């Protein structure tokens, strides 16, 4: 590897990586007992749902899109699942049905974007409102509860010393990684972001890949909803609010580009960790939750702007 390409690779380091370093030093100096195993495990567990959602979002962003419906899709999934369980449906039927609603919503997103040629932003914004409405109607506007062992098993048990929730997140990571790197679907996604013309001259219409991508994102959202419902042991019609912004932010902070098909799910790991470390530290510093979202917004915007500035300077 030449010095030049090495430089380029270092320059391609996702902004989240060095931001995390800054955060760790800052919190380490300002809070007590920061560097403990239990604190980091709790960060990881808290980060899991956002990470799983962001796996799907990574694929959408790679295709030059954004999916704004997945927060609402999470809301709907948790509510539908718990309500179905309340109706005494066996979990083997209730869970696939509930997850199916999110997958179907993703499929519809894909269909609208691919066939109606709507920008993903508009299509998924519309879908967001529809799904939120479904969540509120199904739950009557408040959390729904149900007694079942599954919640505790998923949320509290572990295998080989690693909590189930983390195993699920790792599985989603591996699946997304394999899709992007080792399937034609992945190559098409990267081509759609990098140079849509390349697919056209290869005689491939991107419609199918678009539908597949949104459907997969719907599936990831369903998995995240499963984790989330188990953690709060309920279905909640607003539990997923903010996931759409945070997932897009995590993807961008992870170095995935909205323009040129650059990036991947590896960087997203760091993007999600950054957001969660930031949140966790604010809690430990007793920053009121009403300020937290503003601080997260500022840090995220700052990091993305700084990254864009550095990239521009490098290109000049």
């Amino acid at each position, binding site marked *: 590897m030449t010095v030049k*390409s090495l430089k*380029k690779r270092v320059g391609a380091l996702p902004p989240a990586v060095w931001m995390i370093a800054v955060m760790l030093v800052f919190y380490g100096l300002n809070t007590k007992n920061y560097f403990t195993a239990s604190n980091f495990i709790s960060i990881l567990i808290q980060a899991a749902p956002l990470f799983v959602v962001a796996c799907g979002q990574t694929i959408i962003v790679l295709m030059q899109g954004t999916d704004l419906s997945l927060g609402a899709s999470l809301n709907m999934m948790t509510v539908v699942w718990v309500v179905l369980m309340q109706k005494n449906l066996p979990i083997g039927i209730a869970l696939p049905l509930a997850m199916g609603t999110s997958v179907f919503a993703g499929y519809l997103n894909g269909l609208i974007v691919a066939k109606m040629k709507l920008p993903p932003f508009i299509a998924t914004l519309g879908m967001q409102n529809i799904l939120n409405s479904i969540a509120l109607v199904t739950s009557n506007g408040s959390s729904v509860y149900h007694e079942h062992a599954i919640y505790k098993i998923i949320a509290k048990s572990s295998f080989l010393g690693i909590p189930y929730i983390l195993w699920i997140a790792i599985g989603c990571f591996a699946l997304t990684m*394999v899709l992007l*790197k*080792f*399937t*034609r679907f992945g*190559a*098409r996604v*990267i*081509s759609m972001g*990098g*140079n849509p*013309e*390349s*697919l*056209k*001259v*290869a*005689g*491939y219409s991107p419609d199918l890949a678009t539908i597949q991508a949104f459907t997969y994102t719907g599936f990831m959202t369903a998995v995240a909803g499963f984790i989330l419902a188990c953690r709060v042991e309920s279905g909640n019609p607003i539990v997923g609010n903010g996931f759409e912004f945070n997932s897009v932010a995590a993807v961008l902070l992870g170095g995935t580009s909205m323009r*040129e*098909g*650059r*990036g991947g799910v590896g960087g997203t790991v760091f993007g999600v960790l950054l957001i969660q470390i930031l949140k966790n530290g604010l809690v430990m510093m007793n920053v009121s939750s009403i300020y937290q979202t503003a601080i997260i917004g500022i840090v995220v915007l700052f990091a993305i702007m700084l990254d864009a500035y550095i990239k521009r300077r490098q290109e*000049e």
Partner: protein
Amino acid sequence: MEQQPILTVRGLSKSFPGVRALDGVDFDLRAGEVHVLVGENGAGKSTLAKCILGMYQPEEGEIELRGEKLCFSSPKDGIKHGIVAVYQELTMVPYLNAAQNIFLNREPLIRGTGLINHRKMQRDAKAILASLSCADIDTKIPVKLLDVAQQQMIEIAKALSFNPKIIVLDEPTASLSEREIEPFFKQVLKLREQGIGIIYVSHRMQEYHRIGDRITVLRDGKFIRTLDVGELTDEELVNLMVGRDIAQVYVRTKNEHSGEALRTEDLRDHKGRVKGCSITLDRGEIVGIAGLVGAGRTEMARLIFGIDKPAGGKVYLHGKDVTGRSPSFIVKNGLGLLPEDRKRYGLALKSSIAWNTVAVSLKSVFPSGIVSERKNRKIAEDYVKLLKTSTPDVVRPVSQLSGGNQQKVVIAKWLSAKSDVIIFDEPTRGIDVGAKMEIYALMDRLAAEGKAILMISSELQEVIGMSDRIYIMKDGLITGEVTRNQCSQEEIGRAMVLGKEVEA
């Protein structure tokens, strides 16, 4: 080497809104020949190539491959029949590696899994690249990290991986530097030896001699003639392409030059595309800048206009130092720019003619800040009359006008802004010959009225026909300067390519 053609095109026609791009064109291609398509911009070369590839569907005429009639609905059909292309703009995906780009959408799979067999793909890509004598290209890193010539080779490798019978090369050398062109030609000739039929679209005269076997001339979408390379002199060939005596097309009235309008001193940019250019331009003068694509001409115009900030040097407008000032400041001081890509940078396509006309002069036309629809229309109508823009009214969107009339709206925009120094960047690109002559006449009239015009053009005829003086630019440097009638087209052409000083 007389033989049956593998591809025959008869009576092909294709129209786009407002222009008949192909009009009953005949064409044939033999195995193992390089058949060059020549013609001015807008003559229909690329349209013909795209019809053969299946990207466009012709309205009339037929295409036969080895006697079999073809009817393509997409490039996929073309590929199936062994017709592939290397496009003018690269179709590389920047963050995929060379192997992934070559086999995009046809990746070899590990049997029974749906997973891509990266090892086999790497091996196959390496083998194809080795057959092109490019085994040194790193097939594992994103192609973005490779240089343009290497990407071009990957593009060719991609085409070859389809085992084609026919390859269309559409201006393949446009993005290559001089040093990279010769190895590229060697590859093309190698393909020819393998019996592949090559359709070569180019506007560079010297390339025909180097690699062409036969030439087909198109003009205004019509088939003019097919001939062997060397059958005609360059001059005769140019006459075939242009179709009329150059003296008729380019009219220049003699007029006095008065005082300096624009001057640059040792102008340089940050990217090394412009490496120190000093030019002067007087009122009443038309000065041409000749050079190949990529010579840095448009980049220089952007520096002068303030779009990009110069790394060094000075720009003087009417003797006033405007170096590094913003475009709005520079426009206020009387500079206008007709951009190369007028649809993207010169016009708001969906807006009306009237609105485009006052787009940069809003402040002076409506000093109160309130827009008067009637006044706006009146101004636009005046310019329509003055410039003989052909349109039924001024309220329709400019997108409905033909290329030549769109260009007139851009000119009206700058005249309305009282610009007296105007940069014309490729002013007649994609404009048919009749409209070109009107634009030339207009430029001549503007110069006679004392405006200063800087013309950037890749069409040598145009530069020679219209300019009082010509600067020759190569690799970011001004390599020569000649005055009108001092110099032949061949000499300027040679200077453009080779960068040699022109003997004036």
